[in-house]
């Protein structure tokens, strides 16, 4: 982390990790029911359904019913990201068997993870999504944010196909979080 990143990290009051506190005292934006951002959304243990269309890939996260559109039709990033987005602006491109997703246009209100690691609005996330075999999806995530981190770093997340699962996208954060905080 940069000095700026360290400072933000210290100010964060997460519910997980070394600096953890109670949900009541936490200043985790997710407890305000704001979207968790990327890549943090993958750290919430809720399933995701992916729908692939000719021009876009849609990730429908059961976590708080977040719907993320990843355009794969060759378009560029939206020049006018106003306001900056909670989940960023996602553009995907196939490189061989790997879908490379370039994500920018984030606001700086989300955390990178549930432990309170911060990012700035210069955050640039690259996901390398690869279906390793029929049942396994691997995502190599690169975090680049010169304001918050002294150099780019990567993380790896794996996903397992769950053919028997039916999602209903009925999760309402406001309902769950109000119960948590009481």
């Amino acid at each position, binding site marked *: 982390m940069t000095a700026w990143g360290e400072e933000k990290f210290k100010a964060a009051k997460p519910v997980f990790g070394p600096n953890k506190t109670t949900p009541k005292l936490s200043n985790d934006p997710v407890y305000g029911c704001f979207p968790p951002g990327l890549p943090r959304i993958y750290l919430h243990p809720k399933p995701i359904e*992916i729908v692939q269309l000719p021009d876009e890939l849609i990730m429908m996260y059961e976590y708080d019913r977040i719907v993320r559109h990843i355009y794969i039709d060759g378009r560029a990033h939206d020049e006018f990201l106003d306001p900056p987005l909670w989940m960023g602006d996602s553009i995907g491109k196939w490189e061989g068997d790997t879908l490379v997703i370039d994500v920018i246009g984030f606001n700086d209100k989300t955390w990178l993870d549930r432990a309170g690691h911060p990012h700035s609005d210069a955050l640039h996330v690259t996901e390398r999504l690869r279906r390793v075999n029929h049942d396994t999806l691997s995502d190599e995530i690169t975090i680049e944010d010169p304001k918050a*981190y002294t150099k780019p770093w990567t993380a790896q997340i794996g996903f397992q196909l769950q053919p028997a699962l039916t999602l209903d996208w009925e999760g309402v*954060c*406001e309902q769950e979080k109000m119960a948590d905080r009481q």
Partner: protein
Amino acid sequence: MRSILLAATLVFPAVIFGQAGEEPKPSKPDKMASQQVNPVYDLSGPWGARAPEGNARNSPYGDGDGGWWNFALRPDEPPMTAWAQAKFKANKPSFGPNREENSNDLAYGCFPPGVPRVYAAIAAGMQIIEQPGRTLMLFGQNVRQIYTDGRPHPKDLHPLWMGHSIGSWQGDTFVVDTIGIDDRTWIDRMGHPHSDALHIVERFRRVAYNTLELEITVDDPKAYTAPWTANKVFQLRPRTVRAGGPSCEDMFINEAFGLKPMLPSR
């Protein structure tokens, strides 16, 4: 830092893939346009609501709040029962003739709008995705799935914000039958209520390449003395239009985590 995210790989969130070859069978819209084929069996794509024209804009509700089509499903009062009248009076919408400053509209607590309320706005629009056995309708953050694999509604249905939907083609019309809609939702943005007996039938017809007509039948004997219908017309949107925008929380919930105390009560 690296180790924190690595540790998370142990969580292994489950992922469902859409199955291979799930795109709608008919050709892509662009191709169809060039072939001048009327794609009656393909509703897929992004659709935006069209405002009514001419006399259809008139309403006893007046022309405030962007016109009746921005808060109601039809220009006149549906036939409410006494039960519904009482509920309607208790509701505090922020649109229409009964609008109030301190609304108790659950939409401001970022709860899903329900069906058919999703259609009661100028900005009503959806992305339709047809898959074998299922049609998806995306209304921004609200995902609705309509089963087309012939299954009936479940017997022990618990209420869902967007209801339980099954659909089938009847000639050139896609008919969607929905029950089990959470009775905390309103029929529209002006506070018309419904009961747990609400039964919605939607009839979608793509009358031209660019035009999708929808007839909605609202049947709820507890709330309305007779079934009533409403009509919407949708226009195909260019696929380059981006979905999304600010989140509901951005618009309605203040940043100091001041969650509005809007937990719905039963």
